[in-house]
Structure formats: C-alpha cells, structure tokens
C-alpha cells in the first residue's frame, strides 16, 4: 500500500536530510505507529506519502501508483484515497459537525444524495450520534478529533494518515480516539499514525517503525514505544 524505496529527502538550505535512505513497506490493512523524537522525519514521511513534498531521491509508491509519475493534475485523485488527521483537528469553525464532514465530500463533487446517506453513517462510526448540529467550539478536544476522523474517513480512503492525533488530548480521551482508529483499521483501511504517546503505542501492540535523524532505526511488528534492546 505504501512502498518507500531508498528515499532521501533534503530540504533546501538544510545540511542534514530530513529522511535518509528510507526503505519500507506498509501492507494493505496494516496499523503502523511511526515513532521518534521531534525532527526525526515523521512529518516528512507523511508529507511525502501525500505528495506534498517530492523526494530528493528514491521511489515512492502509494496505493499502487508511482508518485514520481503522478502528474500534478492527478495529485487530488491520490489524496482522495488518503484520509488525514492532525494534532490540531483543522475543523472549519463556522460549520457544524455535519457540515464539516459534508464539506469534504462537496469539494470533490459528490452528489448531495450521497452525502446525506454517508455522512450520518460516519458520524455514528466515530461515536458522535446526536451531535451533528454542534459547532466545533461547543465540542471537547476529543469530540473535535472524532469529527476530524469522520471527515478523513467519510470518503472511505484506502489509507488513513494520523499525525499525532492524540497530541492535544488527555490520556483518558485518547483511548476513545484509538478505539475509533482501530475501528477504521478493521474496515480494511491502512492506518499510519505518527505519535509521541508511549502509553498508546505500548497498549496497542501494533507494528512500530522508529525514526531517528531521518533513518529507520527500528521496524518491529507488535512493538512498543521504548527501545526494545
């Protein structure tokens, strides 16, 4: 599903590469934690998958497509197959829960009939039944993140990228967020989650890829956050 082949990414005016000779495979339906300190290259990895950045060298395949061969014109189609969740939720403050989710479908031209059908389903999936008319500022952080996950998942992407989704949320609420991610993963969606949250990584026992200074220093199935050696 995600295939990195010897990928290096160096940002202009920076000596050390953000990612260096990274090769890895993430299979369909996998749940992967991406761990490592700030600046280790986690965000760069996610940005490369979305083709928000181009690798300096190496090849990347996402959902069967070679990103180097993907024209700018086709980038939006790639992104429709990838959902994204962020630490800061990125909801539209002037739209309610339903409208925030519907927006993601409206802007890719989905018919209203379709939106009316799938948006409520996904609101239920993330556990926000009865809150569809709330505005984001009327929701707790955890609830806002659920809205963001609903928006990321409503178009049934093949891959869900989560960049520290629990970074702004207390540990108790984070468990709920992880349950939703797990539920999404169980529908067959590949989930890649970058995180600092050791407790979560340890409790989930999923594959862990650790980055340090842009290199993969550990790739372990059913891993934990801390050093395994």
């Amino acid at each position, binding site marked *: 599903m995600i295939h990195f082949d010897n990928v290096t990414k160096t940002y202009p005016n920076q000596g050390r590469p953000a990612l260096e000779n990274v090769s890895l495979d993430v299979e369909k339906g996998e749940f992967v934690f991406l761990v490592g300190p700030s600046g280790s290259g986690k965000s760069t990895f996610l940005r490369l998958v*979305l083709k928000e950045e181009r690798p300096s060298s190496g090849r990347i395949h996402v959902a069967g497509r070679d990103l180097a061969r993907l024209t700018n*014109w086709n*980038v*939006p189609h790639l992104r429709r197959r990838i959902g994204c969740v962020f630490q800061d939720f990125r909801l*539209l403050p002037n739209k309610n829960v339903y409208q925030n989710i519907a927006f993601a479908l*409206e*802007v*890719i031209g989905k018919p209203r009939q379709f939106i009316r059908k799938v948006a409520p389903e996904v609101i239920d999936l993330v556990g926000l039944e009865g809150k569809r008319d709330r505005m984001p500022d009327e929701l707790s952080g955890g609830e806002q993140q659920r809205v963001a996950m609903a928006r990321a998942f409503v178009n049934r992407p093949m891959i869900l990228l989560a960049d520290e989704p629990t970074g702004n949320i207390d540990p108790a609420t984070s468990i709920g967020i992880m349950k939703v991610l797990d539920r999404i993963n169980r529908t067959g969606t590949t989930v890649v989650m970058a995180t600092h949250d050791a407790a979560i990584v340890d409790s989930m026992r999923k594959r862990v890829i650790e980055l340090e200074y842009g290199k993969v220093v550990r790739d372990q199935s059913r891993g934990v956050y801390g050093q395994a050696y």
Partner: protein
Amino acid sequence: MRAQFVFHEVWIGLRRNLTMTIALVVVVAISLSLLGTGLLFVKQVDSTRTFWQSRVQLSVYLCTTSDLYGNCKQNGAVTPAEIQSIKQQLTSNKDVTSATFVSAKANYTLFRQEFASNPVEKYALPDQIPASFEIRLRNTQADADPVSEVVDGYPGVSDVVNDSTILDQFYKLLDGARNAVVVIAIFLLVAAIMLVANTIRLSAFNRRRETSIMRLVGASNFYVQLPFLVEGMIAGLLGWLVSTGLLVLVKSLLLDSLQQYFPYGISLSTADLIEVVIVAMIIGLLICGITSFLTLRRYLRV
C-alpha cells in the same frame, strides 16, 4: 460540478471581503467608463469626419443689404451679374468639383430647420441670411486655401468659410479629451489589476483553512480555484454594470448635448454605444479573470 457549492463559496468570499470588493467594483467601474468614454470620443470624431467628408467643404457667402463686411459695405447687396461672374470664377477652377448656388430664401429655410432647437433661430430675419455658393473640392485639405483666395474679396462676396477649420477645433477638443480620458483610464486599469490581485490574495488568505482542507481531501485545482476566479469575475462584472450606466449618461448628457453646438445630426447611434459597452465588458472580464488566475497560481499552489 456543483454550481450551488461554488456560488455559496463565492458569496462568502465577497461578503467577508466586502470593503475590498466595493473598492474593486468602484475602480473597475470608473476605469471602464473612462475607457468607454475614450472609445465613444473616437467614434464621435470618426462619424463627424465621415459626415463632413460627404458635405460641403467651402461656403462662399454673398453680400446682403445689411451686411457690414468691408467688401459689401460700399456695394450693397450682391447683383445677378456679380453672381454670374463669381460662378464663372468657381466653375472654371480645376480644383472645384461643383459649385452650387443657394438663394438667400433657400438658405433661410435651411437655417430655420437646422437651428430649430436653438434660440438663435427666433432672432434671425430673412434679409440677414445671405445667398451662397456651396463648393465641393477635389481635395479638401490641400485645395481649400487656394480656392478661397480666388473668390475672397471678389465683388459681391462677403465671406468665405472653410468648414474644416471650424471642425478642426472640434476635432482638437475631442482628440484632447479622448487622450486625457484614455491616459487616466490606463492608470486606473493598472490600479484595478493590482486591486484584483490584492482582493484575491486577501480572499485566499481569509479562506486558507477551507482551501487547505480542500486540497487535503483531494479537491481538484479547478474546484479549489474556481470560487476565487468567479469572485474576481463577479466583481469585474459588477464594475462593468456600473460603468454601463455611466457610459449611457456620458453619451446622452455629454456627447449628445455637444450636438446642439453643431447644427448637424451626427450623434452616435445606440449600436455604437452597445459596441463600446461590449468592448468594456470584455476588457473588464479579461482583466479580472486573468489577474485572478495568475494570483491564484501564486498563492494557491497544490
């Protein structure tokens, strides 16, 4: 494509950016009306020129009993013999295509018709209006002076009027006005371009949350940019609508009222006005559309 969605976004953009939008509409309106006014002036000059080219080019006015010009004072009104002699002079001249005698009575009737809307008409008496020779020249510009010299001062001739000298002043006035108006219009159009760019940039900045999410969920470039493009074009269209109103005023109040000083019907037709208005629309849309598009390429990259 969901038109409703796009127009909703456009509406939000225009509303959030209200002061910028109003400034843009006003500047586009004024620059387009000035440009249109310039075009109307050009058309006015053209139609006046064509009109005059087919008309009399020299008028030789003959003496009347009440004429005070030096040549007439001693000799009184023109005599039939003098008329014959003048006609001889004119028709034998190779630069003259035709010389038509118009009697004083006929001229008076003509005068009353042409000045029907002018207060002068009431004060003119039949014996104040002279008979004349209306001369057509082979070559208006070059022949006017030599021919008028031939008959000027000839017995029975009161005055020779070269119509083109009167018109030259009119042309100069219109040309000068047109140049001034077009120069101001160009400055304003440059201002309009910068305003469009700024409005679109501000609008893109105001909605950076929306556009970043749109890009993230895979909206096509077209979908992301269209609302902004439409926004710029709508502002341009509103400006054009206002300018159309102003142009109608310019034509009916300024250009048509100029006609009262020139006793010949050479006012511009509605078709001319429509043509100018359409040109203004195309220019307005192009300026707003292209500027928005280029601004978006810069500020809304995928």
